[in-house]
């Protein structure tokens, strides 16, 4: 793990113009994959949109887990907060412009990030994991109780977003929603790329490696992590808002432990500590799950389980991490 991070952390400083090209290539690859997805599965855009919504959640977990070393099984709290914030804004306050709803979702997610960050960052390791579980359950219960606003377990329905820019209505085939989702993910990717490369991002990586040394340097560990939590919350909130806009219903499942755990599994599957890993993990897990559950709706869980075991056995650094290691070894500059 440390070996990869060291190389990727050291490189941009040495060859400055290189990272810009690399990021542009990365962005181009994402857009190209999105376009291929559109043309290959024109009838499955709803699934692709859902994958992108969850991808934002997984990216946001990567920010705190992969870059800062915070273990969390409660990140859906931020995702759900964003979804409910934009859903409630649409249903109860008449804010139905999709762009505004996304902004509201980001704010909701960021606020939830402050709250849960303040709690979760008080512990380390196992304690942290348990705090995050407690937080997501509290969020879930609060939403269940506030059924006047959230619709409780029946879900918050009746969200009908306006056409984007007044031109592109959300249709049955989900083309608009998909385009919207791709745009959001691409923007999020660029922004996160900049953030993780910034001095602030480096500081976070430093904290992950050795918090004591960072503190000795005079930086505030808690403050930095909390900032990252807020950013992460905003990203997750955008994902939640996207979910609320594209499905027009928000359910309690968007605040659930299950979603948190599943998203963490996707991240580890793809490989922590790199944005590509998060994206690859989400796409491969959800696509695989959809594929096997359609093939055998009754007994697909076993096959998903086997996949996870196989990944640990044969690609212990996650799909992306292990592929990268392999590539580096092939090139001969792995060390």
């Amino acid at each position, binding site marked *: 793990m440390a070996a990869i991070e060291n190389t990727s952390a050291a490189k941009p400083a040495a060859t400055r113009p290189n990272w810009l090209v690399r990021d542009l290539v990365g962005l181009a690859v994402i857009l190209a994959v999105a376009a291929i997805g559109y043309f290959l599965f024109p009838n*499955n855009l709803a699934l692709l949109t859902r994958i992108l919504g969850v991808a934002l959640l997984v990216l946001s977990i990567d920010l705190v887990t992969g870059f800062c070393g915070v273990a969390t099984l409660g990140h859906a709290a931020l995702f759900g907060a964003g979804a409910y914030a934009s859903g409630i804004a649409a249903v109860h306050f008449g804010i139905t412009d999709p762009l505004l709803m996304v902004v509201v979702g980001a704010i909701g997610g960021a606020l939830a990030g402050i709250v849960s960050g303040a709690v979760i960052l008080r512990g380390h390791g196992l304690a942290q994991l348990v705090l995050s579980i407690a937080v997501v359950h509290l969020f879930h*219960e609060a939403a269940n109780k506030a*059924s006047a606003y959230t619709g409780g377990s029946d879900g918050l329905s009746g969200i009908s977003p306006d056409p984007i820019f007044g031109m592109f209505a959300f249709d049955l085939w989900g083309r608009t929603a998909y385009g919207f989702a791709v745009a959001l993910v691409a923007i999020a990717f660029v922004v996160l790329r900049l953030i993780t490369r910034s001095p602030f991002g480096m500081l976070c990586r430093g904290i992950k490696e050795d918090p004591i040394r960072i503190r000795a340097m005079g930086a505030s560990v808690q403050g930095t992590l909390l900032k990252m939590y807020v950013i992460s919350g905003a990203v997750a909130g955008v994902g939640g808002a996207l979910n609320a806009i594209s499905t027009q219903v928000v*359910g309690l499942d968007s605040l659930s432990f299950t979603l948190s755990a599943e998203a963490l599994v996707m991240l580890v599957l793809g490989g922590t500590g790199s944005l590509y890993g998060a994206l690859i993990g989400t796409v491969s897990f959800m696509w695989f799950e959809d594929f096997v559950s359609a093939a055998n709706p*009754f007994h697909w869980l076993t096959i998903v389980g086997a996949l996870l075991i196989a990944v640990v056995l044969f690609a212990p650094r996650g799909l992306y991490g292990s592929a990268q290691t392999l590539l580096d070894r092939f090139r001969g500059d792995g060390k």
Partner: protein
Amino acid sequence: MKKSVLAALAVLALSSAAFADTIKVGVVGPFSGPFAIQGKNFKAGIDAYMALNGSKVGDNDIEIVYRDLPAADPAQSKALAQELVVKEGVQYLAGFYFTPDAMAVTPLLEQANVPLVVMNAATSAIVTKSPLVVRTSFTTWQTSAPMAKVAKERGVKKVITVVSDYGPGIDSENAFKTTFTAEGGEVVDSVRMPLSTNDFSPIMQRVKDSGADAVFAFLPSGPTTLGFVKAYNENGLAKAGVQFLAPGDLTQESDLPALGQAAEGLLTTFHYAVSHDSAENKKFVEAAHKAIGNPAELSFPSVGAYDGMHVIYKMIEATGGKQDAQKAVDAVKGLAWESPRGPVSIDPETRHMTQNIYLREVAKAADGTYYNKEIATFEKQGDPGLAAAK
């Protein structure tokens, strides 16, 4: 790239031309996960109907496409429905165990020109979300309200309600409270407990302390009902003569072997008991047992699915296999038939089932197994929940 667009369009065009002889019905339900047994019952009901009535309507072959939705997850529900409509080209959507999942699909129906036949989800409001929704199951209001009348008739004066703290539980509490108070009874306390409760002893202590003559309970069918019923017995409430009243979710047939003796004598009101005595039901149960494999697993969602298929077959007959959702739904408004659960009809106003609700008691059969024995009938009950919501 252009070529592939053309190809995709061509596939679309071809598949819509192919509708003439195979009509696809998309069924979404919990086929894995914690509610797998209910999904299994959906499939058993559908298989039983097709075994008894053939897999053809007129010249059209009927094909069922199953999609798994293990827990309430509206986003996934919508994605699955969209995929079924757009990719699989289904003309009918059916199934749906949980309310939010059904709710998520309703905005699609008009544009997709597809009717939705709800085979379980039991919140009253679903039918109001789209004119293309028909429901063949029940609502929690419908099955809970008659229990209040039973309580009154049996001389119960003070009741404590104990429900799981989520949509259907609250529906059930309101239904019972409203009806029981209207009948002149008194609800002395209302307890809502978290869905994740495992140990019900403290709740039973509350029941004891309230001094009520009876406890009205609602929990989702499944593992927690076992703990609840056992706690009722073990904490001496049964001995103290506190009656146990509940809608039939608590004593669904697939849970009875586990509940066993603990459940004997419990009173429930519900729309269907596997033991229902009629020729129609005998035929159904025989076919459904064959379909589900293990007879002990057969439970109420199967009959919702069976009748749902009946409605869909009627819709296909009425439209001659052409895709016309409004015409299909109009054709079954007011439709009346003899279901395995008894005489039923689709209310033309609400598109929900009007049906008999039965009072049942858990009894021991000659072979030592337990079953729900129907002891009284409330005829032709509509859904009081919609009126109450207004």
